[in-house]
């Protein structure tokens, strides 16, 4: 068998997801009255971004044969932090936390752009730190990931509720405008490339900023990480943890790293959601929905829940497929009441078709893994 045929076979689920996405998205753009315009692209990209990041956050622990039920909660909590830290208030504004009547001063943030950048970094650090905590509990506490993250998810939601008992807060308007529109708007907001009017920049001006950020995260964070020994170890743990351990790989470090990276991705998602909605909201049902949809996206994207095969990029496509399905309801004007039913049926159909391999298995014992 040729090399390409082997590669196609190994990545069959991923390639199916990619093909499926392009087919349904092309169809969507064709039937959309304003199809193939920058405005539609921007809107779609903004709606996909958070779920894509949360799905990426879910993927990394899943590759190491774990499951992270706290991704939605972590995303929500980081969003609540962001609604305090990204207000873009002038320098010297005191930062304080209201806790059941107690006012705790936390010093002051630097103002303007530096303050926003500083606040965003704090948010990402909180996310990675909480992911690290998940990993530490799983690895050093030796508690099953599924139940450990169920518990830490409750804690994260609790913290989010402390921060935002009611939805509220504020995000700097320029930041919201720059990140949720096209590259042209981004350039004119931050005053680069002659306010986005440079002639060479014109072909790129219509690309959604959020899409570019997503690609940058994939290229600058995931791609290098997956090539490191720690990154390969995550895959090895998912395939056979015992073998990975006996091969001298640092299984513990890789597993902690998997959860920490997941936390970082979830924080990126939470940060964007807060920027997009200009507020922090400790919405428990929403957090649960994001967690469950992230699992669905991971499976649709071709990553095995048993670990060891698949990748973050597949989950991004999985998330995009899930979102495009809901876009269709808008275009075709299907009664919103039927929407959840369609979503469920499509999810079930997708995973059941994927189960066709059961029919080809010759030795029943191969089914038990």
């Amino acid at each position, binding site marked *: 068998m040729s090399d390409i045929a082997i590669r196609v076979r190994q990545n069959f689920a991923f390639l199916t997801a990619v093909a499926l996405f392009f087919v349904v998205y092309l169809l969507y753009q064709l039937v959309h009255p304003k199809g193939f315009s920058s405005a539609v692209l921007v809107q779609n990209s903004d709606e996909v971004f958070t779920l894509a990041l949360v799905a990426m956050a879910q993927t990394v622990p899943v590759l190491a044969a774990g499951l992270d039920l706290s991704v939605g909660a972590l995303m929500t909590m980081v969003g609540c932090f962001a609604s305090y830290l990204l207000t873009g208030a002038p320098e010297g504004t005191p930062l304080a936390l209201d806790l059941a009547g107690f006012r705790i001063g936390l010093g002051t943030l630097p103002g303007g752009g530096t303050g926003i950048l500083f606040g965003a970094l704090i948010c990402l650090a909180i996310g990675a730190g909480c992911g690290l905590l998940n990993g530490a509990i799983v690895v050093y506490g030796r508690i*099953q990931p599924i139940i450990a993250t169920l518990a830490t998810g409750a804690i994260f939601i609790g913290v989010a509720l402390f921060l935002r008992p009611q939805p509220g807060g504020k995000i700097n308007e320029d930041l919201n405008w720059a990140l949720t529109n096209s590259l042209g708007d981004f350039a004119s907001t931050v005053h680069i490339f002659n306010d986005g009017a440079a002639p060479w920049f014109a072909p790129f001006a219509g690309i959604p900023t959020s899409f570019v950020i997503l690609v940058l995260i994939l290229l600058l964070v995931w791609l290098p990480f997956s090539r490191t020994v720690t990154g390969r170890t995550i895959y090895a743990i998912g395939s056979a943890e015992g073998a990975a351990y006996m091969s001298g790989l640092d299984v513990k470090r890789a597993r902690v790293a998997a959860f920490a990276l997941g936390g970082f991705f979830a924080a990126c998602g939470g940060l964007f959601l807060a920027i997009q909605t200009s507020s922090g909201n400790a919405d428990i049902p929403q957090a649960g929905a994001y967690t469950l949809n992230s699992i669905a996206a991971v499976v649709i994207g071709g990553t095995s829940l048993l670990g060891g095969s698949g990748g973050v990029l597949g989950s991004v496509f999985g998330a995009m497929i899930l979102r495009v399905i809901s876009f269709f309801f808008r275009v075709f004007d299907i009664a919103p009441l039927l929407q959840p039913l369609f979503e469920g049926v499509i999810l079930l159909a997708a995973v059941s078709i994927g189960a066709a391999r059961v029919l080809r298995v010759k030795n029943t014992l191969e089914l038990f893994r």
Partner: protein
Amino acid sequence: MTAIAAILKPSRDDRPILIAALFIVAILVAGTVYTWHRFGSAPLLSPNYLLQQLQIGAFLGIVAAGTMLVILISQIDLSIPWTLTAAAMMATSVGGPWAIPVGLLIGLIVGVLNGLGVAYLRVPSMIFTLGVNAVMRGLMVAHTGGFAPQTGATEFMRTIAAGRILGIPNALFVWIAVSLAVAVMLQRTVLGRAIYAIGNKEAAAYLAGVNTKGVTVICFALCGLTAGLAGVLLAGYSQKAYQGMGDAYLLPAIAAVVIGGTNILGGRGRYLGTLVGVILIVLLNSVLSIMEMPEAGRQVIYGAVIILMLLVYGRGERVTS
């Protein structure tokens, strides 16, 4: 003598149950100290208050019994919230003498569907039951038109959920009946042994001649049935069915099973532990509400308790080869 020995040197399966039971005592003591200090009374120790808490706990207990069966074969059922809600909604909209059978049947059908998907299609239960949950939610949203259903529970449903015989809540009797059935099934029947065998190593159970597919379907069917029963009872207790009534039962049920010492990977755990786990969660909730703890604090304490309990006795083995 053996009883004392069992307490002094509990076996691997009994240790979690013992520690969880001690924790229940600790919660009761701490809660009583608090109420005595603050209000000068001890409601936590009054039998009436405890019975009332157990009545509320019965719904969680029934769901947890079914959840435990599925966890024992190293699967999970995420469709519980909307199975429960669907059973409640259909029972109230059918009404009359058929209300309860219809509710239970809905639960059973959903459970069998889950079991078929997991056993025959070999779709991971985590994702298949998630899809079924979405489908049930979709069906119910379409059925009710997105509004709160206007139908009420029948008189009989109210009686078994909220009524009392000799001062003991009827729901408690239902919980006890379900508990006895599950405990006997797990300990004294071939099916029970097969469930533990599958949870330990499915391939070995298959080679030993266990009908693994059949047992898997039965476990999911029973889990759906208990969710349906809980839905019918809950509808009777609150006199109506409502959107999202099952959302508060999935994670506490899993937590109760795991706190009770059942291995989340299946194959190990006693039903008594699940019972203790449910009581622990119910009492923890009631003490926190006596303390007027805001939702935020509850969530944090809830999560911390699960982690602490598991750190004490739920730790897995080191991978060394």
